[in-house]
C-alpha cells in the first residue's frame, strides 16, 4: 500500500510520456490516453480514501528515499486528512477537465501532455513532506501553467501568463530564502529539510539581523512564507494576477487554477506557515483576518462590477478564498474545519461555474453579460437551455452558500469559528455573503431571465459529454451540502492536531 502515493504522483507523468509518444495526428488517441490516465488516478485516489485511517493525525502512506544525501534532502511523501481531500479534489477535477478539454483543437498533443504534467506537479506539492521537494514541485508547477495560459489562452494571454509567472515566482523566491534559513536554523541535521520536524514552534526564541536591525526569526520568516502563499491564494493586495490569468486561460485551466492551485496557497498556511511559526501566526492572526476580510468584501464588490462573466467568477474566487483565510485566522477547531471544507467546496462549486461558462462560451464565443456597446450579451437562456440552467442554478447556489448545498456548511463553520475571536470582523464578513448573493443573482437574472436574446436562439443545450462531466460535481455539491461528514471525518484528526499545536501559543 505504501507505494500508492508514488503511483498517483507518477502515473500522470507516465501518461504524459504516452501522449508524447503518440503521433500528432491521432488526436483522439491522445485524448483517450489522457482520459485513461486521469481515470486511473481518480480511482487510485478513491482507493486511497477507502484505505485512509481517519483516526490518526499522523502522515500515512509514507515514502521516504534519500535523494541528495549530502544535504539531507529526501524524496519524502505522505498524506494526512487535509491532503487526502486535496488529493481527491485534484484527481476529480483533472478527470473532469480532460473531458471538458475534448473541444481543444489547437496542438492537442502538447495541451494534454502539459495538463498531465500539471496534475503530477500539483500532486507533488500536496504530497511533499520535504521542503526541497516541495519547493521544486511548487516551482515546476509554474511551467506547464505558464504554457497552458500562454498558448491556449485568450487574446491577452501573453500578458496574463507572464504576470501569473512573475507574481508566483516573486512570492516563492522569498519562500526559498525562508526554507534555507530553516535548514541552517536546525543545524543542517538529517531533519533539516523535513517539514514535519520543523513544526511546533521550535524557533520561538531565535533572532535574525537584516540590514542591521534585529528581528524575531519566527516573525520574519513567517512573513516570507506568508508572501509566497498569500500570492498563491490570493489574498488582497496580491490578487491582481488572478482575474487576468482566469479570463485569459482556457476553461480547463481556469478550473484547475481556481479549483486546486489556489488551494495550494491555503494548504501552505496549514502545513508550513502556521505549524512551523505558530507564535508569529498567532501574533499576526488579526492582520490575516483583516486581509481575509478585505478579500471577501473587496472581491465581492469587484465581482459585482464585472460585465465579463468569467471575470466575475474570478473575483468571486478572491472573495471565497478570503473566507478560507478568515477561517484559518481563527485557529479554532470549527474555523479550521470550515476553512478546509471551504477549500474543498470552493474547488467543486467554482469548478462548476468555470465549466459552465466554458460551455456557454463554446456556443456564444463571448462572455459578456453586458457587451461593451451596452447591448445584452445573453438573456432568457432559461427558456432555451433547461438542462444548462438547472446545472447553473445548482452551481450558483452552492457558490453563494444556500443552505442544503455545500458552500453553506463551510461558511457557517468559518463564522462559528471566528465569531468569538473577531466579532466585528465576522459581522462585516457576513455582509460579504450578502454581496455575494447579490452579484450572483443579478448575473443570473441578466443572463437567464427576461426576453430571449435573438443571438442566443440557436444555442444547443448541454450534450451528453457535458452532462456526464458536470454530474460528479453536482453530486459533490449536493451530497456534501446535506451530509458533509465524509469530508469532516477525514480531516478531523489532522485539523485537531493543528489546532492543538496552535493553542499552545
Amino acid at each position, binding site marked *: 500500500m505504501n507505494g500508492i502515493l508514488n503511483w498517483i504522483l507518477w502515473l500522470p507523468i507516465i501518461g504524459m510520456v504516452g501522449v508524447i509518444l503518440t503521433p500528432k495526428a491521432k488526436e483522439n488517441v491522445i485524448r483517450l490516453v489522457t482520459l485513461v490516465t486521469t481515470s486511473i488516478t481518480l480511482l487510485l485516489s478513491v482507493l486511497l480514501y477507502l484505505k485512509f485511517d481517519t483516526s490518526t493525525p499522523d502522515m500515512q502512506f509514507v515514502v521516504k528515499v534519500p535523494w541528495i544525501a549530502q544535504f539531507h534532502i529526501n524524496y519524502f511523501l505522505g498524506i494526512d486528512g487535509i491532503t487526502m481531500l486535496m488529493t481527491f479534489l485534484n484527481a476529480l477535477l483533472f478527470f473532469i477537465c480532460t473531458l471538458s478539454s475534448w473541444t481543444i483543437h489547437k496542438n492537442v498533443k502538447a495541451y494534454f501532455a502539459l495538463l498531465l504534467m500539471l496534475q503530477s506537479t500539483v500532486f507533488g506539492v500536496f504530497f511533499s513532506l520535504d521542503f526541497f521537494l516541495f519547493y521544486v514541485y511548487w516551482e515546476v508547477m509554474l511551467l506547464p501553467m*505558464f504554457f497552458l495560459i500562454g498558448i491556449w489562452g485568450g487574446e491577452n494571454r501573453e500578458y496574463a501568463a507572464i504576470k501569473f509567472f512573475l507574481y508566483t515566482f516573486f512570492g516563492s523566491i522569498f519562500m526559498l*530564502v525562508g526554507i534555507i534559513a530553516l535548514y541552517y536554523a536546525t543545524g543542517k541535521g538529517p531533519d533539516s529539510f523535513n517539514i514535519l520536524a520543523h513544526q511546533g514552534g521550535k524557533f520561538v526564541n531565535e533572532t535574525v539581523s537584516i540590514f542591521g536591525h534585529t528581528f524575531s526569526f519566527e516573525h520574519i520568516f513567517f512573513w516570507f512564507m506568508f508572501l509566497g502563499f498569500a500570492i498563491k491564494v490570493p489574498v488582497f493586495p496580491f490578487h491582481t494576477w488572478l482575474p487576468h490569468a482566469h479570463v485569459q486561460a482556457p476553461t480547463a485551466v481556469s478550473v484547475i487554477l481556481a479549483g486546486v492551485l489556489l488551494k495550494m496557497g491555503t494548504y501552505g498556511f496549514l502545513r508550513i506557515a502556521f505549524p512551523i511559526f505558530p507564535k508569529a501566526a498567532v501574533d499576526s492572526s488579526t492582520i490575516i483576518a483583516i486581509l481575509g476580510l478585505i478579500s471577501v468584501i473587496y472581491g465581492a464588490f469587484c465581482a459585482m462590477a464585472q460585465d465579463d462573466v468569467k471575470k466575475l467568477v474570478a473575483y468571486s474566487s478572491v472573495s471565497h478564498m478570503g473566507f478560507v483565510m478568515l477561517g484559518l485566522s481563527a485557529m479554532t477547531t470549527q474555523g479550521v474545519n470550515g476553512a478546509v471544507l471551504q477549500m474543498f467546496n470552493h474547488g467543486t462549486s467554482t469548478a462548476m461555474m468555470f465549466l459552465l461558462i466554458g460551455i456557454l462560451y463554446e456556443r456564444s464565443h463571448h462572455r459578456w453579460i453586458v457587451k461593451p456597446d451596452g447591448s445584452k450579451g445573453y438573456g432568457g437562456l432559461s427558456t432555451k437551455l433547461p438542462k444548462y440552467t438547472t446545472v447553473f442554478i445548482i452551481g450558483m447556489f452552492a457558490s453563494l452558500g444556500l443552505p442544503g448545498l455545500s458552500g453553506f456548511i463551510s461558511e457557517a463553520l468559518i463564522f462559528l469559528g471566528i465569531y468569538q475571536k473577531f466579532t466585528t470582523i465576522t459581522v462585516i464578513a457576513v455582509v460579504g455573503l450578502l454581496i455575494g448573493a447579490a452579484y450572483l443573482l443579478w448575473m443570473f437574472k441578466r443572463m437567464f431571465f427576461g426576453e430571449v436574446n435573438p443571438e442566443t436562439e440557436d444555442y444547443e443545450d448541454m450534450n451528453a459529454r457535458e452532462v456526464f462531466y458536470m454530474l460528479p460535481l453536482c453530486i459533490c455539491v449536493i451530497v456534501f451540502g446535506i451530509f458533509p461528514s465524509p469530508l469532516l471525518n477525514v480531516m478531523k484528526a489532522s485539523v485537531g492536531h493543528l489546532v492543538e499545536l496552535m493553542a499552545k501559543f
Partner: protein
Amino acid sequence: MIQQLFGYLGYYIPEIVCVVLMTSLLVAESTVKDEHANRGKIIGFALAGLTICLGFLFANLGEEPKIIFHNAITIDPFSTLIKIIMVMGTMGAIFLSYSSKDIYSNLKSEFAIMAVGVLIGGMLLASSNNMLTLYLGIETLSILSYVMSSFKRDESTSTEAGLKYALYGGLSAGVALFGMSHLYGALGSIQFGEMITKLPGLEGLNLAVVLISFVLFFVGIGYKISLFPFHMWTPDVYQGSPIPVTAFFAIVPKMAGLAALIRISMIFFSEVKILTVSWVGLMLAISALTMTVGNVTAIGQTSVKRLLAFSSIGHVGLMILGVVVLNDVGIRAILFYGIAYMFMTLIAFYVTSHLSDMYGNDSSEVFKGLIYKHPLMAIIMAGVLFSLAGMPPFSGFVAKFNIFSVIIEKKMYGIAIVAAINSVIALYYYVKLAKTMIFSQADGEVKVSGFTGGHQAVIVAMFIPVLLLGIFWEKVMILSGNATIFIK
C-alpha cells in the same frame, strides 16, 4: 636544478598539451593548401587535442595540491576543475565556430588557435601562485581576446568591440599592475605565500597602502569578469564580436578571472580581520550592484547577444557571493555554478548563432514562433532560459540554491533579499524571450534549415547535463566540494 624542473613538467602536462596543440595548429593552418576544404580536419584536430588535455586534467583531479616551478604555479584540485570547465567551454566554442557564419571561413582555424591561446592564459591565471604569473595570465588571456573580438574585420561593430576591449583592458591591466607594484613595495615579495606572512603585522600607512593597492589590483580582475563598475565594455564587446567568440568570452575569461578572484580572496582575506571586513563589505556592495545593474539593464535589450551579455553580468554578480563568505562551501557553490553556467551559456549561444546565421541578425524577433519552426530547438532553448532564471528542475536552480544557501548560512539576509529580487527581475527577461519563442506565431512559414542531426545531437547532449544537474546533482556537488582544496 634542471632535473627538478623536468620533474615539475609532469604536473604541467595539460598546459603543455595546449601549447603543443596551439603551435601545431599554427603550422597546420599555414601548410594546409586548401584551407576551406580542410578546415573540418583542423577543427577536428583542435578538438582532439583538447580532449586529450581534458583527459589529463581529469586524471589530475584527484592529485594532492602541489606548488611547482619555484612557487610560480599551483596545481591543486581547484585550479584543475576550473581548467576542466574552461577546456570544455573552449571545445564548445570551437565546435560552434565550425558551423557559424559569423566566423569567416578562412578564419576558422585562426579562431581555434586564438581560443587555445586564450585558454593557456586562463589556465596560467587559474593556477598562478605569485603576482607575476597572475599578471602574465591576465595579459596572455587579454591580448589574444582583443584580436578575437575584432574577427569580423569588415564590420565596424566588431572593430569597435576589439578597440574598446583593448582600451579598457589595457587601462585596467595597467591599474592592476600599479596596485601590484605597491603591494610588492609594502609586502616585499611577489609570492602569495610570503606576502601573507607580512599581512598581520601591518599597521598605519602601510595598511592603508595595502588596502588601496588591493582595490587597484582588483580592478584588473573585476574587469575580466565584468563586475560593476567595470562592466561597461561587456555589452558592446559581446554584441560586436562574432557569436562563437562571445560564447567563448562568456565562459573562459570569466572562469579564469573568477578563479583568480577566489584564490586571492581566500589567500589574503580569510585570515586578517581588518582586511576581511573591508573586503567583504566591498565585495557585498559590488555584488549587489553588479547583479542589479546587469539584470535591470537586460530587460530593455532587443539584441539577444546583448541580453545574454547583461545576463552574464547578473550571473557573475550572484556567483561572487560565493567569494564573499570566504569558505569552502562558497567555493563549492561557485564551482557548481560555473559548471552549470557553462552548459547553459553554450546552448544559448548555439541556438542564437544558428538563428542569427539564418536571419542575419540576432534580435529577439528572430526567435518569434520558434516552436513552430523547430520544436526541439525551442524546447531546449526554453529549458535553458528557465534554467538561467533559476527554475527547478534545471541545474540553474541548484546553482542558485547553493549560492543562496551559503550566504544565508552566514546570516547575510540583506544580500539574500537583494539576490531574491534580482532573480525575479532576471526571470522577467528570460520569460519574455521564452514567450517570443513559444507564444508568438511565426512570420511566414519559414522552417529552420540546416539544423541537421549532428547539431541536434550536440544540443541535446549539452542539454542533458542542464537537466541532470538539476535533479541528480549530488555527484557533481561532491566533485566541486573536493575541488575546494587549496594551497595557501
